[in-house]
Each structure stands twice: as C-alpha cells, then as structure tokens.
C-alpha cells in the first residue's frame, strides 16, 4: 500500500498492515530475481578463495578477474538489454576485432591522430549495429540468424581489408598519453581503466532499464512484441537503438584493447559471443526475453570472470574451467527459474486485510 487513502477505514483501524513501507522486507528480497545470481557468485567466490589460495585473494588476483569482468561486462550489458527485448547479438564477436583493427589501421598504420582512429572504430560499431537492427526489422528473420550472418561477414571483411591495406593480420598501435590514460591503461599497474567505463555503463544501463520509460518498453517488447506495438511503443526504433548500443559497446571494447595492448589482431574476440550470453543468462535474464535486471547481468559477469580466472590460481588444469562454467550455467538457469517461479507464485495473504 503506497497511500493510506487506499485503505478502507475499518481495515485501517483493525489490521496492522505495514505493506509497502519503504524498507524492503526479507521476503521481498528473496523474491528479487537476482537472488539466484547472487548465490551463484558467492558460491564461486568461496570456492576459489578456498582452492585459489592467497594469490587469488590478493589485489593482483582480484584485478585479474575484475579486468576480465570489465571487458566482458561492457558487452554483456547491451547484449542483456537486447535479450530482454527478445533479441540476440552474436556479431559482437567480430565487432571487437573489427574495431581493434580499425583504430590500429587508421591511427597506427596510417598515423592519423588517435581521436580519428577512435571515432572511426566507434563509428563502425554504430554502423554495424544500425545494419543489424534494420535487417532484423525489415527481413523479420530472427536476430540470431541475422547477427550470425553479420558475424561472419564482418570477420571476413576485417580479414580481407586488413590484408589489402596493411599486408598483415596484426597491426601495431602507439597511442598518445592522454588517449592511453583514458581508454587503455593500467591503474596502479594492475586495474584496467575499462573498469571505470564498465561502472559508468552499468549506471547508465541500470538507469535506462529501471528508471526510464525506455526500460519499460524493452521489457514489454520482450514479453510480447505485438502487444507492445499495439500499446504505442515504437518497437522498431527501440530495436535499432538496442542493436546500435551493442555495436557501440563491442566497438568500445575492441578499441580499448588495441590501445591497451598497443596492437590489434584480426582474430581476437570470438570468445565474447558465448561469454556475453553466458554472463547474461547466469545473471537471470530470460533467453526468450521479457525478464531480467542489470544487477543480475553484473553478477553473472562477475561469476563468469571469477571462474574463468580463478582456475589459474587453483593448481587445477585450466581446462577444467570450461567444465565448471558449463555446469554453473545449467545450475544458474535452474536456480533462476526457481526464483522466478517463486516471484510469480507469491501471493499476499488475504487474511491480513480482512
């Protein structure tokens, strides 16, 4: 109850209703969809802090998985929004190296100012995202197929053009001090600056999904696209905007990687395709759309990164990491389903208000 005016007088006098007080109750916390993801993350954190030893718990250990989380997280957030809206974007796997190569070729090979290379890389992400969006809307082909096509097309284009323009598949890049400090450097020698970019994007996407009208449109589109359109939501514009955001974010990661490592390779980034989907799904987003949260996506990203990097601290063969991630993915989805069902089946007790 948000307002006393809604309580009928005789009930207000007799029943001690405290529904809707501003503090969330434990019960309402348990019904949050992120609980499953939170439990999963705490579990892997405990697991690796036991088996990973002191190194895993050190600053360097934390940096190793936080850096991975930051890069993955920047891509997983828009991919998560797309998934909530009922779409997938596989093309991020090619977008990352394409943007790396763009900035390296423009600013490294042709020695254009860094700002031009960065703009070109981000511009490419924008264009590819726009093309994905338009193709999905116009052709009505599932976005899985459309972005699978652009994934391969873009990979081929990157390889072909790189060889034509530079004669090689790996280009060196020397960036000026300011660009490097802002986009691709280590802070304290350990933490990538992308961590701060990730935090900024988390805040932006969190705001959009939970506090803006746009967020409601995304949820509605994933829930039922036809009804959403009938309710007056500009579904086509929202779809294009979401694909542009995932293209841009993937381009950002590729570009910052090139600046960080001072070079770019044609084949680097295919791992982002499945890793971003895994992070998002572990985070409780429904693969078929209509449900998900930014807190969940962040938790899913952290969980994935902890497993991915933590394995190196344990003394187990690193090959086991994939097995753990596979099992974890399945467990996380089962757990998320359980919590979602709990949230759905929850009914307030009628006796209280009578």
């Amino acid at each position, binding site marked *: 109850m948000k307002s006393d005016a809604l309580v009928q007088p005789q009930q207000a006098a007799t029943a001690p209703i405290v529904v809707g007080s501003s503090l969330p109750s434990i019960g309402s916390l348990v019904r949050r969809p992120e609980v499953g993801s939170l439990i999963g993350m705490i579990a892997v954190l405990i697991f690796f802090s036991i088996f990973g030893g002191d190194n895993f718990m050190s600053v360097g250990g934390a940096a190793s998985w936080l850096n991975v989380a930051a890069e993955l997280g920047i891509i997983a957030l828009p991919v998560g929004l797309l998934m909530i809206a009922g779409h997938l974007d596989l093309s991020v796997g090619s977008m990352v190296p394409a943007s790396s190569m763009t900035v390296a070729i423009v600013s490294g090979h042709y020695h254009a100012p860094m700002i031009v290379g960065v703009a070109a890389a981000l511009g490419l992400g924008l264009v590819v995202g726009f093309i994905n969006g338009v193709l999905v809307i116009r052709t009505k082909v599932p976005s899985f197929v459309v972005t699978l096509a652009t994934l391969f097309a873009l990979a081929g284009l990157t390889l072909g053009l790189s060889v034509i323009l530079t004669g090689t598949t790996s280009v060196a890049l020397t960036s000026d001090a300011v660009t490097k400090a802002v986009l691709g450097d280590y802070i304290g020698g350990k933490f990538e600056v992308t961590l701060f970019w990730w935090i900024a994007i988390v805040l932006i996407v969190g705001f959009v999904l939970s*506090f803006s009208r746009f967020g409601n449109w995304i*949820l509605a589109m994933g829930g*039922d696209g036809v*009804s959403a359109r009938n309710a007056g939501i500009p579904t086509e514009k929202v779809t294009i905007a979401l694909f542009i955001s995932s293209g841009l974010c993937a381009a950002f990661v590729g570009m910052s990687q090139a600046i960080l490592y001072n070079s770019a390779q044609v084949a680097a980034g295919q791992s982002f395709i499945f890793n971003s989907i895994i992070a998002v799904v572990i985070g409780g987003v429904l693969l078929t759309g209509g*449900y998900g949260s930014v807190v969940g996506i962040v938790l899913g990203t952290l969980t994935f990164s902890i497993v991915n990097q933590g394995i190196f601290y344990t003394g187990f063969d690193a090959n086991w990491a994939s097995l753990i991630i596979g099992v974890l993915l399945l467990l996380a989805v089962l757990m998320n389903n359980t919590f979602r069902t709990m949230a*759905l089946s929850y009914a*307030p007790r009628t006796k209280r208000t009578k």
Partner: protein
Amino acid sequence: MSTPLLKLTNVNKSYGPVAALHDISLEVHKGEVLCLLGDNGAGKSTLIKILSGVHKLTSGTMEMAGKTVEFDSPRDAGAHGIATVHQFGGTFPLMSIGRSFFVGVEPTRRWGPLTIYDRKRANEIAVREMRQLGITRIDDGDRLVGGLSGGERQALAIGRAVHFGASVLILDEPTAALGVKEAAHVLRIVLQARRKGIAVIFITHNVVHALTVGDHFAVLIRGAKAADFRKGEKSREEITDLMAGGEHMAELEAEIEGYMATEDNVAAPITTP
C-alpha cells in the same frame, strides 16, 4: 440513445477466396452489453479483429457515433476508444502490475535533471483501479502479473481500458478459462463497466454467462448472423439450439436422451462450456 456508439453495416470479410464473415450488421449503444455468441469457428475472432483494427473489412461500413471510421492498426482503434481484452488478460506475465498497466503511456516525474518513470504513482493507480473493480487481494503494484489469477488479470486489463477512457470495451471470452467464482466476479466487472456508460461487446460461447449480463444478443453461425434479439426475447435452450445450428443440437439431444434413458435435466450437460 438514437445513434449507436458503434455500428457495423453489411460487413464482409474474406481471406482470399475464403469468406470469413458474411453481411454482418450490428450495433451497440452506450451503456449496453452486446453479447456475441457462436460456436468455435463461427467468425467471432474475425469480427473482433476487425473491430480492434487488426484486420480491415473487405466491404461494408463501420461507424462510430455516426461517423464512418476505418482503423489502420490496433493503435488506431485504441485512439478511437476501442479497447480489446483477450482471454488471458495481461500479456506481460513477467512485468509488474504497475508497469504492465502503463505500458506505452508510463507516468514520469522529474528527478534532478532527469525524467524518470514514476513507479510509485503507476503502482498506486494500477492498484486503485483494480480495487475499484473489487480486487482487494492485490495491495502491491510491484507484484508480477503472472502471479495473478485469471480473473484478476481480466480485472487488471479491464481496469486499464476504463482508466484510459475506452468507450467500447471488447471482451474476448473473458470467462472461458475461469472457475465459477472468478467468472461471476468478471461478470460483475462487466456490469460495472456498463454502468459507467461503456459499450461492452462480450464474446462468449457460454449462454449462461451471456444471459446474466447481456442486453442485446447476436448469434453467429459460419460467418453469418443467425439471430439478433434483445434480453428476454429468447430462452436459454433456444439460444443454445441456435448456436449449435439447430438440427445438430436436436440430434445430439436425442442421442443423449436415448443413452441416458431418463429425462433428468436434459439442458444441464449441454450448457456446460
């Protein structure tokens, strides 16, 4: 009361060579419940789709308050004051009550330099509208729509239509999936909407439910209007007969009678949906 709020004249609809509706003429007035009855495949859904702007009619005219209208989309129909509520009510089971109530027309408020979705107000209004329709169990607009019962979802969808000023409310089989008690509640809500001066088009194949709330009845058989009568002009058995196409029902009755070898309340098993 002289001009009907919504009037169809000689409406035909065909999908290619297949005729789905044939020469349908109907009218519904303000504050009146028109029950559209018909067996499965009688053309009820096609008629709803035309009324709600999903399909365009092949020939004939549709008038609202005396003016000819043509809907380009469901949105367009909505702008003309036509709201359609489908069998399962809310279509966003994983959205909160407040959010799904205001889909596409979210209330906003200022928050510093930003304009944000006003969750509190949305929840408050959604809960209040549901309370007005007698749903007292729901006190929190943050609950997911999927957690509501079928009748509560109907109430949410009808409350939404009423709140946004619908003048014609189309209810597509609202009671079909409900238990007796919930169906009774939904029927009461239909009467409440009628009292507010809304024209209700109630689609059903349950004769009992139709007779409870209807002022005016139309029976569809294989795409054509087989009967059009007002409350009290026909009995339940007559309507049931009409819906099933007359002779079919007589045959069926004879068969059942022969099988049961008793005259114990022949009508009862037939009217069960």
